[in-house]
Structures are given as structure tokens and as C-alpha cells.
């Protein structure tokens, strides 16, 4: 693009604004890594919990993967983020909003878990409801419909968990997260929206 000192038409101006804003929006530096990472961890933990917990004679702790998940996911997130910060320097409104949504989620969910466990309730419904909300906002921010679809799937999972026995909750969590995270994460990764 050479220097265009000569005025150009209002229509050209509007076209430039619209095209550039569209390009800038697509610069949201999200490639689905987090959806794939946390989706995989939740599916593993949920299935482990369901199938190990199903057999009451089993001596293996069915909740073990849930306890390990924040450590494994946390370390992977920190390593990935450090590497990403070295290559990408750009910040924008959308990246910030996306990051802040999940930061808020990361603070709210442990508080919710503590509350429901203290009240001797299943944490599945509030976790899935909050996850659906964070995913919904992410889908809007990234303007990526499969993520909004994923949020709906997870909300349906939350609704289902209200009407089922707790023994099914880990399976519901695994299936809802598997669909709600992994499919949009894969599609986002494939679309290379970095």
C-alpha cells in the first residue's frame, strides 16, 4: 500500500474501515489450545471417576484425576503461556476480554466448588453452568459459532445433572465437556485463527 495522500471517496473510506476492523478482530490470538487441553483433562477425569467409581469394590480413588487435573492443566497452561508471550506481543480488547472471562471463571469455580461441597451437594451443576457461561462469552468474543454451540451443550449437561442421580454426574461432565470443548477446540485449531 503506497502513500495515498490524495483523498479517496467516502465509500472507499468505509470499505477500508470495515475490512481493517474485520482483520483486526480475527487477530484474537486463540487457537483452541486451552479448549483442547482442558477438554481432554475433564474427559479423562470424568470417565475415570465414572468407571472406577461404578465398582464400589475398587480400591483406587475415583476422584484422583480431579485432584491431579488442576496441577497438570495449570503447569501446561503456564508453560504454553510463557512460550506464547515470547512470540506474540500484541494485546487487544478482544484478547483481554477473552482472558479476563476465563480468569473470572478460574476464580469463581473453586469458590463454588468449596461452597457446594461444604453444603454436601454435587458440584457438577454449578461447574457446568459456569463453564457454559464462560464458553458462551468466549464464543461471542471470538465470533466463533461452534463455541457458542459448545456452551449450549454444556448448559444442557447442567440441566441434565439436576434431574439425575449423582452417580451419573461424572459421565455427564465428561460427555458434555467432550462435545462442548473438544469439537469447538478442534475446529478453532483447524481454522488457524491465530
Amino acid at each position, binding site marked *: *500500500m*503506497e*502513500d*495515498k*495522500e490524495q*483523498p*479517496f471517496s*467516502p465509500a*472507499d*473510506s*468505509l470499505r*477500508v*474501515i470495515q475490512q*481493517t*476492523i474485520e*482483520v*483486526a*478482530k480475527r*487477530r484474537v490470538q486463540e487457537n483452541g489450545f486451552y479448549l483442547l487441553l482442558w477438554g481432554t483433562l475433564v474427559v479423562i477425569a470424568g470417565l475415570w471417576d465414572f468407571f472406577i467409581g461404578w465398582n464400589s469394590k475398587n480400591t483406587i480413588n475415583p476422584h484422583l484425576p480431579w485432584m491431579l487435573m488442576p496441577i497438570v492443566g495449570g503447569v501446561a497452561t503456564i508453560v504454553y503461556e510463557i512460550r506464547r508471550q*515470547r512470540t506474540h*506481543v*500484541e*494485546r*487487544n*480488547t*478482544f484478547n483481554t476480554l477473552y482472558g479476563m472471562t476465563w480468569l473470572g471463571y478460574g476464580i469463581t469455580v473453586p469458590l463454588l466448588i468449596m461452597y457446594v461441597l461444604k453444603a454436601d451437594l454435587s458440584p457438577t451443576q454449578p461447574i457446568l453452568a459456569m463453564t457454559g457461561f464462560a464458553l458462551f462469552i468466549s464464543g461471542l468474543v471470538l465470533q466463533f459459532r461452534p463455541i457458542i454451540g459448545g456452551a449450549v451443550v454444556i448448559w444442557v449437561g447442567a440441566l441434565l445433572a439436576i434431574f439425575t442421580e449423582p452417580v451419573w454426574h461424572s459421565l455427564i461432565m465428561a460427555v458434555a465437556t467432550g462435545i462442548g470443548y473438544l469439537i469447538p477446540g478442534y475446529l478453532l485449531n483447524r481454522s488457524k485463527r491465530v
Partner: protein
Amino acid sequence: MYEELDPLLMSQLRLTVMSYLMVAREADFNRLKEETGATSGNLSIQIGKLQEAGYIEIEKTYRNNYPLTLCRITPVGIEAFDQFQQKLQAYFKR
């Protein structure tokens, strides 16, 4: 019509830079060069003009020991861009 519009934004390159920064708020020089397809010299001149008008601020810093030029839109720039867009929309409603 042209007299009503901000002459500083009636340049394709400067308008592209401002449009990009309206979303990104901040971008490094190389990113702007990539997005606009402009030459380094031309881009330098144009962002210099935007800086003179107070529409953007330029910060020269280092990242990983490499020089980095960051361009950031200012509240004055945001106001100017908003007004420019409003006048354009008013033009098309005529």
C-alpha cells in the same frame, strides 16, 4: 463533503492504521506493516503524522533484546475516528 471530513484520516494508509488500532488499541510497527502492506519508510511517515496530531502515541522499547516500536491509539484518536465514522454514515444517509 471532503471539507467536513478529517483530512488526516482521508488517507488510505492512515485510515487503515487507525481502523486497526481502534480494535487492537496497540500494535507493534511490524504488525502494522504486515496489515497495511506499506513500506517501512512510508508507514513511519504516516504514523508520525498521526502522532503529531495526538491520535496515536509511539513507544520505543525492547523485547527479548530486540527494538520494538509500539503504536497505541489515544483518547483523542478514538474521538477523531468516531467523529469520522459518524460523518461518513451521515453522508450515506443523505
